């Protein structure tokens, strides 16, 4: 028979051998004894709560970018990747490019487009993470307030929305371009809540052509995406202003 006094002494590590080992052995096979010990051990709700609350505060801390990056199979900056390829005429491992599934999938969560824009910076034009591929904060704000055909200067380039359309599901979608020093981006994004989800993004290096004419290689894809979205006709200025004002 094991008394509560002995069990408490066991918990406190204050029991002499061989009794310590005997109780340890009994606990391994006697569930009822485990339950008794648990009842004796669980009389310290205050300390348990203090500890839980102290570490729960960690949950609210912002995640370090390096940790987020570690969860991405690869972080690919299109402009940087292209620059690296061009600087290195013979790619080190051309075979890797024959793994489209792996490469593209890694882009799905690790894509940051924007030449010269540091990763994890709020100026990133497009960020892609667990919440989806979407416009960065600066671009999102500009998309929500810039009329089609006019320019907005962003830290990562000059934004020019091309058209606004209403998708079949009611979402407001905008085709836009961003001209950077060494690259141009053309893309289609749809507003969901206060985010602009990227449907299609296409980046081309060195393009200085007027993106408003939108004749880049991404144009066919954007047209195809607009079809897939069952998008209506481009809005006129008045309809667009209304749609932008009403989230």
């Amino acid at each position: 028979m094991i008394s509560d006094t002995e069990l408490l002494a066991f918990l406190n590590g204050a029991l002499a051998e061989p009794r310590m080992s005997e109780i340890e052995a009994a606990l391994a096979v006697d569930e009822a004894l485990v339950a008794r010990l648990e009842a004796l051990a669980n009389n310290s709700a205050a300390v348990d709560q203090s500890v839980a609350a102290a570490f729960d505060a960690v949950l609210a801390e912002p995640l370090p970018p390096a940790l987020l990056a570690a969860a991405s199979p690869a972080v690919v900056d299109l402009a940087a990747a292209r620059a690296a390829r061009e600087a290195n005429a013979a790619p080190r491992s051309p075979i890797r490019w024959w793994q489209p599934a792996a490469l593209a999938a890694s882009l799905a969560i690790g894509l940051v487009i924007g030449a010269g824009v540091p990763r994890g910076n709020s100026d990133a034009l497009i960020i892609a993470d667990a919440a989806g591929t979407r416009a960065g904060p600066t671009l999102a704000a500009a998309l929500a307030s810039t009329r089609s055909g006019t320019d907005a200067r962003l830290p990562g380039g000059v934004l020019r929305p091309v058209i606004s359309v209403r998708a079949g599901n009611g979402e407001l979608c905008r085709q836009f371009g961003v001209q950077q020093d060494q690259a141009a981006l053309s893309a289609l994004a749809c507003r969901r809540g206060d985010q602009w989800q990227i449907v299609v993004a296409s980046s081309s290096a060195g393009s200085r052509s007027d993106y408003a004419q939108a004749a880049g290689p991404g144009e066919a894809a954007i047209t195809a995406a607009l079809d897939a979205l069952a998008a209506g006709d481009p809005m006129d200025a008045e309809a667009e202003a209304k749609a932008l004002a009403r989230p």
Partner: protein
Amino acid sequence: MTIVHIGAARDEQSLYCTGEYFGRQIVWIATMNNAAALGRDIIAHLPRLRRFCRALTGTVHDADDLAQAAVEKAMRNVEKYAEGTNLDRWLITIAHNHWRDSRRSLANRTPHSNVDDLFDMPGEDGNRTQEQLDSDARVRAAVAALPAEQRQLVALVLVEGLTYREAAEMLNIPIGTVMSRVARARAALVGQLAPAGVMPS
């Protein structure tokens, strides 16, 4: 090969790319592979992993190093992860093993003895008062000052919420030992914190 264009599909699970290869236009559709799916799931679990690592290591810096090592190891072992695996438990096991192994190879660090030396940065949470943040930091410092064998059980049982039995199985030690170490950890924490008025005695 040059990738000219990448489009994210509406389901956000797949995308398509266009590009050229030896001058020929090519198009392919890609579905998110296991590594990407795992990464996406891990990102959702990072706050809990950081919380566990903070309790286990005691400092912000060591905790984030450990969390990062655990995530990297998890991503390298993507083939061992199946949808439906308890990802929390998997990550925590990886983190704990890494911590234990690095302690072994590093010749056990002595536990910190002075709570005031250990003040870590308070968590950033607008809803908590400064007083509460200070007391949180004090509690975390008191946990950090525990011997490692007790601290790992505080991390597993009090912070992560494992049962005594689950902790015993994970550490491969008898359940009585688990309960005894947790009890001694609680007593030590009360001894540290109650006199400072951080916690009701």
